[in-house]
């Protein structure tokens, strides 16, 4: 599609490709630098690169990278789809991903919540996927209601985009309701921690089982068009009696829900649900998440949990298996957020029965949190080292930089 670009944009693209390739060969910031250079040379390059493509944007607090990967796969995978599978989810990263895949008519991009408006304005998306909104890095990203409101503004500004949103999450539903005809996905969800205030009228929201209702304006949980259901096994149930079994390799409830999203989005774009479900079967890890690394005497599974809602998902996943040892690593660097008070919104009590080791820059505070949760544990200097000291299968759960440090060491 490069050939249709105006000269200035073509120059930007060619220059950016050169820099991008060079950066990759030297191992430096290959996932964003090309886009940054192109944007400096041509401010409208993202819009130009998106012209003529069917663009799907995926945003939310948790599960963006995994769901983006699933949707890309359900739509036909690498040969067909441009995607930012390294998780570079700000405009430069998205520009780079489009630069790298000039001939693919489909583009599935995860977008940082704060940039949805900007990216949607440039790419005129065919679909916007809203996964969930919960507290994450309050000190850096800001308050979650403000984030969700801005996402809602972006939804309202793109009436032609099909919005696929999570009905069980109050803030997510609030943003989805800004669309005239959203497609709702639902499933039992265990996190309601940011759900006390109505996104529409600021009234009090109360929960009864899976339902939520605003006491002031009557706004309530929309009925799901697609639902994650459990009969004999797990399946995704869609409109018109469609039901496809989920046979995914990624563990846990959150991933079954992510897969339901992927099937729903693929169906909207004309892929039969059974075909989409079959394409998801082979997915075993996403950017190192859920990857199992074998080592002498055992194996280590790598899990990412960077906020309370993410931890709720990981705890669900750990509940499904035996009580294996868990190494928990928490940092508070720039990319993690400096404030670690969110540790108190994680029900670590649920780790009872697992031998626990804590590590990371904030291991001392994590240790205090676990002490109040009644969990015996020890502190290790190094998370990966702690897994090596343990026989058998171990789960290593890290927040953002702790997880990436571990994946790098185990690469």
């Amino acid at each position, binding site marked *: 599609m490069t050939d249709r670009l105006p000269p200035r944009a073509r120059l930007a693209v060619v220059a950016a490709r050169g820099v991008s390739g060079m950066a990759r060969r030297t191992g430096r910031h290959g996932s964003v630098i090309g886009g940054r250079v192109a944007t400096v040379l041509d401010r409208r390059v993202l819009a130009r690169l998106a012209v003529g493509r069917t663009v799907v944007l995926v945003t939310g607090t948790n599960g963006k990278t995994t769901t983006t990967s699933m949707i890309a796969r359900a739509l036909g995978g690498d040969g067909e789809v441009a995607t930012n599978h390294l998780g570079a989810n700000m405009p430069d990263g998205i520009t780079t991903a489009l630069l790298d895949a000039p001939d693919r008519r489909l583009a599935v991009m995860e977008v940082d919540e704060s940039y949805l408006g900007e990216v949607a304005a440039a790419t005129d998306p065919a679909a916007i996927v809203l996964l969930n909104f919960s507290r994450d890095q309050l000190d850096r990203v800001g308050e979650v209601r403000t984030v969700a409101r801005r996402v809602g503004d972006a939804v309202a500004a793109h009436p032609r985009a099909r919005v696929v949103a999570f009905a069980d999450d109050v803030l997510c539903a609030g943003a989805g309701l800004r669309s005239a005809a959203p497609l709702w996905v639902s499933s039992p969800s265990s996190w309601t921690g940011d759900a006390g205030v109505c996104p529409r009228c600021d009234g009090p929201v109360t929960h009864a089982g899976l339902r939520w209702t605003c006491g002031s304006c009557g706004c309530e949980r929309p009925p799901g068009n697609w639902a994650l259901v459990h009969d004999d096994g797990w399946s995704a149930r869609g409109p018109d009696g469609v039901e496809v079994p989920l046979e995914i390799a990624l563990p846990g409830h959150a991933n079954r829900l992510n897969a339901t999203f992927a099937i729903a989005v693929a169906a909207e774009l004309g892929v039969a649900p059974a075909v989409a479900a079959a394409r998801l079967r082979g997915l075993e890890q996403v950017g190192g998440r859920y990857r199992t690394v074998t080592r002498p005497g055992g194996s280590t599974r790598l899990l990412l949990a960077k906020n309370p809602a993410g931890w709720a998902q990981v705890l669900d996943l750990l509940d499904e298996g035996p009580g294996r040892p868990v190494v928990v690593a928490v940092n508070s660097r720039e990319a993690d957020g400096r404030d670690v008070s969110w540790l108190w919104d994680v029900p670590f009590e649920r780790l009872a029965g697992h031998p626990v080791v804590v590590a990371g820059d904030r291991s001392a505070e994590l240790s205090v949190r676990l002490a109040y949760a009644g969990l015996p544990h020890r*502190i290790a200097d190094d998370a990966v080292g702690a897994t090596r000291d343990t026989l058998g299968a171990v789960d290593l759960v890290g927040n953002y930089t702790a997880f990436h440090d571990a994946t790098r060491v185990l690469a």
Partner: protein
Amino acid sequence: MSARIVLLLPEVLGTYGDAGNAAVLATRLRWRGIDAAVHTVGWDDAVPEGGDVYVLGGGEDAAQLLAVDRLRDSTGLRRALDRGAPTLAVCAGLQILGRSFTVADGTRVTGLEVLDVETVPGRGARRIGDVTADPLLPGLTDPLVGFENHGGVTTLGADAAPLARVRGNGAGNGTGDRLEGAVGGSVVGTYVHGPVLARNPALADLLLTRALGALPPLEVPEGLPSSTARRLGARFPGAFTAADRRRAGA
């Protein structure tokens, strides 16, 4: 009878992990052999008047407005405050218990008028970061540590005393005089998150002592790193671990 720690409206006043303050209070009583439970007051629940310590956390503007309206009509909370029940109020909780606060859109809201403080929005950027403060409240000696994240400016009236004085570039109440928090009657208000009682066990024990009188020694459970056991309270007179007790031959 079990001691009752009353946690008020965590669905709306629980943005910064402050619900952890209630868990810390109850657990520190249990570690002393005193039966204790957290009584969580949800949106539709009545506030009990017979609680031992009351805890309010932080929240965003819309949540704070809901909370003040909900608590204004609560006779249970009013009676508890009238009889002097120890109360910890963090951030939005502190503002709600004051005479008034003004939200970002300029609306001035009457508070519960328990603390002699008034809050208006700050003019600069929010102050966000770690904070250390020297305590001014009698009974506290260790520096108060935690995390600040707020933009309000809270001025103390004649009937309120500051909790602490911040060091370095901390903002405290945002008034430029380094004062942090507000104490009046049985209420201790602070802008320190963390949660504050997890980071500052001496403040937790001060609230518990006010509620229940002198406390038995704290016995930290086994299976914890010794550095953590020390953080949890070994600096207090009479605090020791089960291992210490065995070594002493008790």
